[in-house]
């Protein structure tokens, strides 16, 4: 409504003409100026300006609804009460039914963790007929990274819904509903978005996926202009698109390594610098989402996918073993508690290993771990003592009550320059093997 013409609003003719004569045509033009500026420009008394501005404001202002009305409309008008079920039972339960309509849901995680797999699964779910719990609509899949695989989507379909896909022609119909776009640049993407807005309602589109947002700006990234600002327009456009056509929008985001002095703190927290140095969590996450804090404000739900490797020990501490697990974490959500679920990627797509989530305390829910080994070994003078270090840590961790309810693993970290060596997977694995022998 911002671009409504003042002439058509029904202001008294005399004043409407003055606005027109000074080339103030739309509500946007008028309201971008302060009342005194308008007075100067229009050469009219302040009282008249104030009443005209009040009138224009009222015309521009969207209608008021009560929250109750909103709730009732949602319950009445929308299938599945406004959520797209992910079929991951635990996740659906805490997200109150699945991926909500009308907002942006973000998947963020390191390369190869399973973001695209999750997207493919969701695309398939949205295209399924309603009798099978789908949304029975088209899906627009914006594939920026060229990772979409039609073969894979049919595989996921026939493995997860054998009863639907065994019938003839179903695979063709389902896959036919998924429309894949491959924009080559940001401006390409901008153009497609504008087209999509028009066709969303005409063509029964029930889901929009962008895989990934970060790849769109990575090519156009300049050192001094943060990439996220390039997306300012897209952020608000996609948000309003999601909201007004009431569809779920899934976007994925890449990760990058954290820069050293990039501390997520306010200036008043600085006096704790000494504490920060000791703070283990400072070394905890080396990966952050590629699109920064500005973008993070825009998404309503953020799901972090990560992989953690670590030592696993039996209760008697006789053996230590190396494990690697993938987790999906609800890092931001207005509705759900901060839980994490272990998951795996298999032939039928993505599935949870455990439907009861484990609560993650504090900002750790935002941390993104890659498949890297982390050892927590005390650094003593100029040599280190792995065996004693691990023993101490293991004992310490087992005494913590939270660990009993937590997943049966822990992460070990270096507290030394060796920290960086942990990226050397094989080297560390050898150390682990040695430790295992000692424990036996």
């Amino acid at each position, binding site marked *: *409504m*911002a671009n409504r013409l003042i002439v058509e609003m029904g202001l008294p003719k005399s004043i409407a003409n003055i606005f027109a004569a000074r080339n103030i045509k739309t509500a*946007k033009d008028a*309201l*971008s100026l*302060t*009342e005194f500026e308008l*007075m100067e420009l*229009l*050469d*009219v*008394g*302040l009282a008249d300006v104030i009443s005209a501005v*009040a009138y*224009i*404001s*009222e*015309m*521009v*202002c*969207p209608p*008021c*609804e*009560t*929250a*109750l009305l*909103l*709730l009732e409309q*949602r319950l009445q008008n929308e299938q599945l009460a406004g959520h797209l079920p992910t079929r991951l039972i635990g996740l659906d339960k805490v997200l*109150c039914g699945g991926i909500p309509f009308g*907002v942006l849901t973000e998947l963020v995680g390191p390369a190869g963790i399973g973001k695209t797999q999750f997207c493919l699964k969701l695309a398939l779910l949205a295209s399924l007929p309603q009798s099978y719990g789908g949304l029975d609509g088209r899906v627009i899949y914006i594939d920026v990274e060229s990772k979409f695989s039609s073969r894979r989507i049919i595989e996921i379909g026939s493995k997860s819904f054998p009863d639907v896909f065994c019938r003839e022609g179903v695979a063709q119909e389902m896959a036919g509903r998924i429309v894949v776009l491959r924009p080559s640049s940001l401006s390409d993407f901008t153009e497609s978005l504008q087209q999509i807005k028009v066709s969303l309602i005409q063509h029964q589109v029930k889901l929009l996926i962008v895989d990934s947002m970060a790849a769109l700006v990575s090519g156009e990234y300049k050192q001094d202009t943060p990439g996220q600002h390039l997306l*300012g*327009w897209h952020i*608000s456009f996609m*948000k*309003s698109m999601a*909201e007004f056509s009431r569809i779920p929008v899934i976007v994925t985001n890449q990760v990058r390594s954290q*820069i050293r*002095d*990039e*501390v*997520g*703190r*306010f*200036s*008043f*927290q*600085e006096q704790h610098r000494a504490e920060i140095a000791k703070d283990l*969590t400072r070394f905890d996450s080396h990966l952050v989402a590629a699109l*920064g*804090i*500005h973008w993070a*404000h825009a998404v*309503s739900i*953020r799901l972090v996918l990560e992989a953690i490797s670590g030592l696993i020990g039996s209760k008697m501490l006789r053996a230590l073993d190396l494990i690697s697990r993938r987790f999906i974490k609800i890092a931001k959500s*207005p*509705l759900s508690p901060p839980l994490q679920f272990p998951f795996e990627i298999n032939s039928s797509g993505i599935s949870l290993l455990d439907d009861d989530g484990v609560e993650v*305390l*504090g900002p750790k829910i*935002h941390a993104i771990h890659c498949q890297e080994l982390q050892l927590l070994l005390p650094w003593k003078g100029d040599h280190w003592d792995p065996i004693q270090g691990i023993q101490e840590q293991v004992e310490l961790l087992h005494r913590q009550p939270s660990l009993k309810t937590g997943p049966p693993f822990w992460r070990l970290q270096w507290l030394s320059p060796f920290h960086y060596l942990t990226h050397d997977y094989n080297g560390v694995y050898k150390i682990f093997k040695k430790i295992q022998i000692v424990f036996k």
Partner: protein
Amino acid sequence: MEVMRLPISVSQRKKLVSAGYTSLSALSSASPSDLARDLEISEVAAHEILKVASHGSRLDKSDGNKAILTGAQNAWDMYKEDLHTRITTSCTDLDNILGGGISCKEVTEIGGVPGIGKTQLGIQLAVNVQIPVQYGGLEGKAVYIDTEGSFMVERALQIAEGCVEDMMENNNIRPRDLQVIQDKLQPKSLLANIFYFRICSYTEQIGVVNYLEKFVSEHKDVKIVVIDSITFHFRQDFEDLALRTRVLGGIALKLMKLAHNFNLAVVLLNQVTTKYAEGSYQLTLALGDTWAHASTNRVILYWNGNERYAYIDKSPSLPSASAPYSVTVKGIRNSASNCKRIKLM
């Protein structure tokens, strides 16, 4: 020249100056008909100018024994009023550092990193403002202006249910009153008292702020206005930063006036951004340094270890302090691990 400051049109000002009226005292001695003749305008217009001029120069005559200046209020009355116009956050520690809750008649800005609970706090306040007088509330209504689309009505229902549940548990009310209150306090009727505006551009945002004055005068029982968030559209769509600052300044002034005139609380939620200072990147609230003056109180929400904390960054009446809080299924509540650990900084 004093007449240059009068809020009248430019052509009339020019006429005043060219006719030799440059000071307010010159105008105060002129009659409408004199002025009309000197300026060659109608008597009605001349009368208007004189009215504006006398308004500008007036040192108001005392208004009985009530106040020395019209529109003024003595400190004692303000103190008495202040005690009864706080909206609880449902977290005792947070209320304590805020001096009892979010204050009416003031603009409070709340900022923090994504996912810290800004929207949660906004919804909580929109629900809590409706707590009946018997329970120490204001029994008002709320206006929720959503610029981001982050208001989730399902969550509002959860918080409303949590609020009602807690009230039923914590208070001893005579059984006969209980029935009345229970009828009034259905979670759904709490939702019916939240007026929701969905704003999709900065023009609409300016529009709604201008319109609020009329809306609130029609709905006198509105006691809180939450804007979630003040930042969103201004951060994306503005190229001219000087204009942005001016427009935001205008919005801030109007909101302050609104808060004062209708005795209601204005809560602005703000996003954070990174700023390069003293050799490292720091977090700071968005919209720049000029905007930092716009609100009366400023509260920053942040992570401290594993807990959420609120910090009073700026307030004319409160010491800067921080307190933990937590976000639960029922809404904002006391931090689970510690009930008494307010840190004075």
